[in-house]
């Protein structure tokens, strides 16, 4: 048995059904200690990959959710001002020199570690998930680059902090903005597509073991057909799972038994008004017949 298929089994045990090429990529990530950039539509399970990886490596997951306006203070580090000011007050009486006082208040004791700094100062390599990196401002990429290529962070008052353990870094992007070449270049790359019928079926049955084969097949077939239609918000894997779970709760054993009720459960799949309007009962019935 090869290393790749072994790894694939470990991923499956942690609850993630990965194709063998994805398993190979993830293995490469851990061997080469290079960050991995995952791209793909929303809802294809990019974030889930990082979570699973943390389970497989039995290490903590540190997550940095990016947003427009993310700054150093909330991503890398911040000085604990209040604490520092109190320390200054307390030191007023003991006649230490100004230099040593300054050294004291700018020591690690007063440093608040934010995700990026936290990730490189842990005892055990964590998985660092930088989620939706494309939402962060372009200027902020410089900070990512420093962490991702050298695994170090410079803090003016303290000097450069080098990684004690290198984190496994996973970046995800939804393509709201083009990432810089420099960042892309540092990373391994994997494009995550919507799952094939077989893969999605395996995901549904592994997450919801109590579902019967027929319903699982119908659900997946239905969603796969839905994805081919022109929708505002294409349903992802999470939606499939939600829907299947909802159907189970309602004790529905087959889609074709009660089309009315099925219509009411579509809230799990269709997330915009336009999509709701587009999937009328007729359309839904046709999809069910096809999925039969």
């Amino acid at each position, binding site marked *: 048995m090869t*290393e*790749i298929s072994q790894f694939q089994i470990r991923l499956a045990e942690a609850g993630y059904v990965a194709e063998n090429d994805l398993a*190979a990529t993830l293995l490469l990530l851990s061997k080469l200690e290079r960050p991995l950039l995952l791209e793909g539509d929303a809802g294809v399970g990019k974030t889930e990959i990082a979570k699973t990886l943390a389970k497989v490596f039995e290490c903590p997951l540190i997550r940095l959710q990016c947003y427009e306006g993310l700054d150093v203070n909330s991503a890398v580090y911040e000085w604990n001002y209040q604490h520092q000011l109190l320390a200054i007050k307390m030191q007023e009486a003991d006649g230490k020199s100004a230099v040593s006082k300054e050294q004291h208040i700018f020591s690690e004791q007063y440093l608040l570690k934010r995700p990026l700094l936290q990730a490189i100062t842990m005892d055990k390599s964590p998985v660092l998930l930088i989620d939706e990196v494309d939402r962060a401002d372009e200027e902020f990429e410089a900070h990512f680059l420093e962490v991702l290529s050298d695994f170090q962070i410079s803090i003016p008052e303290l000097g450069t902090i080098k990684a004690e353990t290198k984190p496994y870094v996973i970046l995800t992007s939804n393509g709201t903005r083009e990432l810089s070449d420099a960042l892309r*270049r540092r990373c391994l*790359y994997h494009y995550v597509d919507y799952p094939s019928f077989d893969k999605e079926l395996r995901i549904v049955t592994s997450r919801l073991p109590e579902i019967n084969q027929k319903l699982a097949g119908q659900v997946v077939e239905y969603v796969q057909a839905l994805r081919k239609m022109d929708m505002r918000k294409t349903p992802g894997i999470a939606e499939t799972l939600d829907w299947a779970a909802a159907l189970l709760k309602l004790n529905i054993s087959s889609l074709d038994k009660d089309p009315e009720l099925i219509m009411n459960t579509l809230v799990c799949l269709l997330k915009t008004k336009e999509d709701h309007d587009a999937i009328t009962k007729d359309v839904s019935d046709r999809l069910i017949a096809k999925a039969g």
Partner: protein
Amino acid sequence: MSAGLQQEYAELPDTLSVSLLGRLIGFLRFMRGNGYQVGIQEDHDVIRMAEFTGLLDRRRVRWGLRALLCSNCDDWQHFDELFDAYWKPLNRTQEQRSSHSEKMDSKNGLAGQQGGGDQVAEADHAEEGDDSDAGDGGSKGGASAQEAKARTDFRMLVDESQMREMEHLVEKLAKQMRRRMTRRQRVQQYGRRIDLRRTVRKSLRYGGTPLDLAFRQRKQQLPRLILLLDVSRSMSLYSFLFLRFARGIVEAFKDADAFVYHTRLVHVTDALRERDMSKAKEKLALMSLGWLGGTRIGDCLKRFNQDYGRRIVNSRSVVMIVSDGYDTGDPDKLADQLRQLKQRARKIVWLNPLLGREGYEPIAGGMQAALPFLDLFASAHNLESLLKLETDLMKL
């Protein structure tokens, strides 16, 4: 060659494993020639990759290399084709088949075909001179097509599908505008500053220790955009595109407003905000009685000033008038209304698509009368000029 690999392939004749590695390095050159971002780091990593994927199972080598060499979706989609072109013996003589491969330069092409140990030396050699090639390769065709599109005058679009595509682009551009404008502002006022005065004030209750810090942050002031679109007959080549532009704008800027005018003025913001395209069209059709007739800009502006001016035009407003300036009304009236508008609004921008044509001079009566009141008079006849608009808007 690493020790691990040597061990793994101990049973293979030395020359074979060396030549395999040579081929592998050759592949990196080949990919670089095709516009992939391949640097020295990849040379190192590919050997470490080979230690666990091995070199004999093509599928595993493919997965490993793909993760290592691709850096965007486009690369990802073309990888298999290039991989097969290089590694499948049958295809080796026809490497230049895809449009991608055509850009491969001859040196790399040669390197791809030779294989063998001397390859590594050749590869090192190629290091210095090749960088420029690596940069331009790849999707150059796409880029230049894009560029051509950006310069095409909107009126040159005759084909229905081209028109659809352009409309789509214009709307997208409008939507992105807000994002880029806010970003630019943020860079200008980078970082937050401590407001010393208020910090000291707050520190009074702690006996002078500034425990509570007060921060000063300049308020973000995006201009409030108001679009007035001329939909008369002389503008018919452009009016639908500008409607899409307006649609993008009102969707991205919550406080933006859009109007269309010909002989009458119609408020279309709500119709444009309608997300369902067919409903939006319906609403617009109802309003469009009299479209594509003559223009009376002066009268329409008067209407605008009377009915909406006080309510929606303030010192933050940038009023954008899109028109070719061919007016059947009285130029003096137009000048008069513009003067009034100017007192209320922050800036007045006039976009005239004709300005992009060679030899056009703004001599039409209406245009002449309007010129003194304009803060910006720009063409808006293609994508490029629309894009430039946002920089100009920020400067105002």
